[in-house]
């Protein structure tokens, strides 16, 4: 294997790799702006200049191919001097308006200034004025003054989104990013340009000015926007989710996330209920104490529990595998419901990259659990039919994520008993006698199986507020009050039981899903393929 | 019988209502004003209930005790739900009452011949020739005094226990431990006095102290038993549970046995503390400062007033005894007041001891010294029963203490510790060893 000498250390590399790739693998930090591991090399920011022996000038590490026997210095005085000079040059026309810049706190200009420059400005001339509030598209605002023209966004649109809506216009210190006349940055992946922007030039309208980056707390999760299950970071503060950002996963979404998925950031916030709702007569639901609501739910469900007739139980396709299993056990052991339903969102837009038509993130997982447990679910239309015909008299609705919410609510109006578990106040909560506050997927510890049959772990990013509890906890509470005590002290025990009880998950190793997920040994449907 | 009842009642009224309570109340004001002035502050001075000519009458803040009393009476007396209700209620009374009862054997003035009193029949005069200014004249007065004073600690212990609060309980335990430890030293130091004067009746001790001694000095306990006086004073301060011995109350750490008391319950504890100061000052003045008497000025049948000398013959028996009585009570009061002020000043001079230091001082310093005092005193009395030798020894001791305090060696301060070799003569202690180790 060929090798080069990096700061006096011998480093092996694959033929065709560049210096920066070899250095990154060796944890030698070389600063860069324009280079991106998943984009083509532009070498225009010059931040990654390193000294290569026998080369007449400093070489850009991102572009220079590593060759056998090459001797590279990244820390010597010459390189440091170049980094200082390049950084000062990048900041010549930068407005330094960090107080009003959304990137502040996660800005490479700030980080590298502290690390590689740390010298006062010597600029006495007026800085070049450029447009500062250019709306490139519905989700992206461009500030040309802050832009260092690294062209990462241009390259992203060309190479990944394959929709070249952006370009560089003008020359020299007048150059700026923009769209050609008549073109709008309205691609379904446009917000990735904001992610790749190393400075505050591109900002997202959905996050702009909402919070400062350093106030946010980050947790790992999976996007619930469609069945692709892109890996995401959830950024929240005080229980309010402010944005979703892509998390690297080579097997699913690389470094990208579609705009549609990002816009689901508001699902955990919108109409969020953290206190139980209870409805008497025809009044609107009112908030009540969690224990009182639980007792009420038990009181309503008790006469039905063993009747085995006229009881419907539905689960949302957004439920995790663990919740689906607990739900299955609950309806079999406790409720003995004769109608099992699965509710979900209707298919939507799709493309060749990430988005798939199925907008329910865990259809594969829930279906597998139900199939293994011998539950035969009906869909919303059938459920409404049975409600109208009177075969269903009582309804336990777990999860509110369905496109048929208003219709279901209308059909359920005549039912005697409607008990609902949900994290947001939707149409079903308005007709339910009791609504128990659940938690959204960003607060849930669980597993989703995406369209590629890949099991991915959701992590509870922050604790439930007030009386809110995960769905399985509510179901276990109701079960214990109806005389069935489940011995599941933790999520791990539920997962272990799923592994041992359900044939589909026997090989799944649900208890040890790594951060990037596990591929399940199931047949992968054709529509799962992605060109990304 | 009626005569006894009336005179005892009058003595009681004077002692409790006209002397102890007002003095204790005054002490609450003094404590604050004295500490304030010691610390370059002003202290409470604002309280006023009325104004004259538009200016509020403030009387140097003397109205503050009244305001405090009104406030405390109208606060909610709160009892914790888990407390022992009855014990919680009576605990403040115990210490308070015991302290007052101790006062009953303290003589606060000279005996008055019954014959000078009005409305008294001949039989009564024959039956009771004198009225002692002492509520009870008990032969074993000193023992009675210490027996009841020891019961006083039940107040703190019960309060700590009944509050059902761990801090209160700790405070109560500390109070009991401390009181018991120091009572040993207290009792043993008194033995020296008992040996010297051969009496256990307080007024007899007072009279014995005011006889002229061999050196032309009175035989006051402080001259005869200076070490005993010092030990007794230290132990009595410890008995009052005041700084530097206030570990049972330790505001900054455990708050103390009265943490669960509010309103007048707390008020009783606070006032009880001041009553204890007064009582222990009275005991001290009785045992060591000659009680109500003042030698050279007050004699049994002459009072020297500087410009003239009063005798029963010159002014009449009735007037003489009236002046004698008032002067005696005044001198008694002045001595007590002085001792109270001294205790307050000590509180604002010394920091609090650690608990182990309190125990070390009580058991390892005071107790052995008190025992040594007994043996030395007994030996001296055996050698010279006239107390002259003892007085000489006592004066020698006092002189030594003063000499050492004034001219004793000084440790160099931290500033002088570096580079001032010329002060080397001061850096040795009394044993000639280098005082600081480098």
């Amino acid at each position, binding site marked *: 294997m060929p090798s080069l000498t990096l700061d006096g250390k011998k480093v092996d590399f694959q033929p065709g790799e560049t210096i920066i790739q070899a250095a990154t693998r060796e944890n030698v930090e070389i600063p860069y702006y324009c280079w991106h591991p998943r984009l083509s090399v532009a070498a225009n920011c010059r931040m990654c200049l390193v000294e290569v022996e026998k080369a007449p000038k400093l070489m850009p590490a991102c572009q220079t191919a590593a060759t056998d026997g090459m001797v590279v210095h990244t820390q010597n005085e010459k390189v440091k001097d170049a980094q200082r000079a390049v950084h000062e040059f990048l900041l010549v026309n930068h*407005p330094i*308006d*960090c*107080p*009003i810049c959304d990137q*502040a706190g996660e800005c490479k200009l700030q980080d590298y200034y502290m690390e590689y420059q740390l010298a006062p400005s010597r600029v006495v001339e*007026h*800085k070049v*004025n450029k447009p*500062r*509030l250019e709306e490139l598209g519905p989700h992206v605002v461009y500030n040309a*003054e802050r832009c260092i023209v690294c062209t990462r966004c241009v390259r992203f649109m060309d190479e990944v989104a394959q929709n070249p809506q952006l370009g560089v216009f003008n020359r020299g210190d007048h150059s700026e990013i923009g769209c050609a006349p008549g073109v709008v940055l309205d691609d379904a992946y446009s917000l990735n340009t904001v992610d790749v922007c190393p400075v505050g030039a591109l900002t997202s309208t959905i996050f*702009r*000015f*909402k919070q*400062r980056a*350093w*106030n946010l707390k980050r947790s790992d999760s999976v996007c619930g926007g469609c069945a692709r299950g892109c890996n995401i970071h959830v950024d929240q503060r005080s229980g309010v989710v402010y944005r979703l950002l892509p998390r690297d996963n080579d097997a699913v979404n690389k470094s990208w996330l579609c705009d549609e998925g990002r816009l689901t950031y508001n699902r955990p916030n919108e109409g969020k209920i953290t206190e139980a709702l209870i409805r008497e007569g025809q009044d609107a639901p009112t908030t009540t104490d969690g224990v009182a609501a639980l007792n009420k739910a038990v009181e309503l469900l008790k006469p039905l529990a063993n009747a085995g007739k006229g009881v419907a139980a539905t689960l949302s396709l957004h439920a995790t595998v663990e919740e689906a299993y607990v739900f299955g056990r609950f309806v079999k052991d406790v409720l003995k419901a004769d109608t099992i339903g699965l509710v979900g969102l209707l298919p939507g837009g799709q493309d060749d990259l990430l988005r798939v038509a199925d907008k329910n993130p865990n259809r594969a997982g829930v279906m597998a659990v139900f199939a293994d447990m011998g539950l035969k679910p009906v869909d919303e239309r059938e459920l409404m039919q049975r409600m109208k015909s009177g075969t269903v008299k009582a309804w336990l609705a777990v999860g509110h994520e369905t496109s048929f919410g208003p219709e279901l609510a209308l059909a359920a109006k005549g039912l005697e008993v409607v008990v609902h578990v949900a994290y947001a106040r939707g149409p079903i909560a308005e007709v339910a006698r009791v609504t128990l506050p659940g938690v959204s997927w960003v607060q849930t510890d669980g597993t989703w199986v995406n369209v590629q049959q890949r099991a991915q772990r959701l992590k509870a990013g922050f604790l439930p507020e007030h009386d809110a509890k995960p769905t399985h906890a509510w179901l276990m509470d109701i079960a214990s009050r109806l005389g069935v005590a489940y011995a599941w002290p933790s999520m791990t025990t539920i997962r272990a039981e799923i592994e041992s009880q359900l044939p589909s998950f026997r090989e799944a190793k649900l208890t040890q899903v790594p951060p990037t997920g596990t591929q399940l040994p199931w047949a992968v449907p054709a529509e799962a393929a992605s060109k990304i | 019988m009626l005569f006894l009842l009336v005179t005892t009642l009058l003595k009681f009224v004077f002692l409790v209502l006209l002397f102890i309570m007002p003095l204790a109340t005054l002490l609450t004001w003094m404590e604050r004003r*004295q500490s*304030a*002035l*010691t*610390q*370059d*502050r*002003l202290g409470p001075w604002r309280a006023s209930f009325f104004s004259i000519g538009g200016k509020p009458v403030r009387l140097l803040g003397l109205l503050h005790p009244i305001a405090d009393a009104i406030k405390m009476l109208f606060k909610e007396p709160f009892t914790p739900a888990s407390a022992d209700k009855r014990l919680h209620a009576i605990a403040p009374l115990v210490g308070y009452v015991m302290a007052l009862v101790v006062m009953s054997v303290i003589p606060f003035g000279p005996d008055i011949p019954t014959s000078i009193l009005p409305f008294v029949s001949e039989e009564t005069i024959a039956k009771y020739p004198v009225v002692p200014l002492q509520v009870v004249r008990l032969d074993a007065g000193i023992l009675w005094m210490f027996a009841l004073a020891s019961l006083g600690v039940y107040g703190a212990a019960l309060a700590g226990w009944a509050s059902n609060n761990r801090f209160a309980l700790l405070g109560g335990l500390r109070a009991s431990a401390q009181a018991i430890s120091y009572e040993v030293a207290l009792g043993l130091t008194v033995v020296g006095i008992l040996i010297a004067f051969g009496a256990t009746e307080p007024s007899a001790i007072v009279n014995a102290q005011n006889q002229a001694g061999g050196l032309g000095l009175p035989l006051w306990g402080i001259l005869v038993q200076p070490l005993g006086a*010092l030990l007794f004073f230290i132990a009595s301060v410890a008995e009052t549970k005041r700084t530097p011995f206030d570990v049972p109350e330790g505001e900054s750490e455990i708050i103390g046995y009265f943490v669960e008391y509010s309103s007048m319950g707390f008020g009783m504890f606070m006032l009880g503390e001041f009553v204890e100061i007064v009582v222990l000052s009275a005991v001290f003045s009785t045992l060591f400062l000659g009680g109500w008497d003042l030698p050279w000025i007050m004699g049994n049948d002459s009072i020297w007033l500087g410009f003239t000398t009063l005798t029963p013959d010159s002014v009449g028996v009735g007037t003489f005894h009236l002046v004698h009585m008032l002067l005696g009570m005044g001198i008694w009061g002045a001595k007590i007041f002085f001792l109270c002020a001294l205790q307050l*000043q*000590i509180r*604002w*001079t*010394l920091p609090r001891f650690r608990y182990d230091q309190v125990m070390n001082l009580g058991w390892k310093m005071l107790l052995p010294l008190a025992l040594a005092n007994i043996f030395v005193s007994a030996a001296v009395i055996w050698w010279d029963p006239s107390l002259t030798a003892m007085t000489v020894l006592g004066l020698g001791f006092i002189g030594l*203490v003063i000499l*050492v*305090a004034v001219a*004793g*060696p000084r*440790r160099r301060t931290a500033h002088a510790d570096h580079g001032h070799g010329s002060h080397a003569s001061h850096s040795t*202690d*009394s*044993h000639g*060893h280098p*005082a*600081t*180790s*480098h």
Partner: protein
Amino acid sequence: MGVVRVRDRVEYSLYERSFVPEILRGLAITLGHFFSNAFGNKETRNLQTVRYPEEQRVYPARYRGQHRLLQREDGSSRCVACYMCSTACPAYCIHIVAAESPDNRIEKYPAAFEIDLLRCIYCGLCVEACPEDAIRMDTGVHTPPFFTRDDAVVGRIDLLSLMGRAGTAPAYGAQNYREGKPRGA
């Protein structure tokens, strides 16, 4: 770098351990204060008490009083809602809601700027942190008393209306060290 000096434990002599002379000396000091304050004349008295409502201490020029927000010349708030103050605040008493300013040259402004005066510890770190000189604590005013906790939360309008110590007008112009510096369109 602080230098740690280790001193050996001092062995006290018997004379010192008796403490009697030292206690007497201590009593002399405290009694000296007492008598010079209680019975002395004006020269010997050293009373530090300020009789508050009648006498009032003059605050030093840099006294940190209640906060105020400074105005631009058009009366709008100088604050750009950068959250520096709320980030620096050790008591978490500053709550800001940023919003897009209608004025394009400013971009960002505080739709809400609230200080919870009950939480505030008057450390002045917000003033230190402010990059726009928009918040100062130079009013020379104490925290006013409140009847409800909500009253203690002071909003943007109230903060803007407070005056500086001089009591004339909210300071702007000469004090703006950024004046004349080229910035933006």
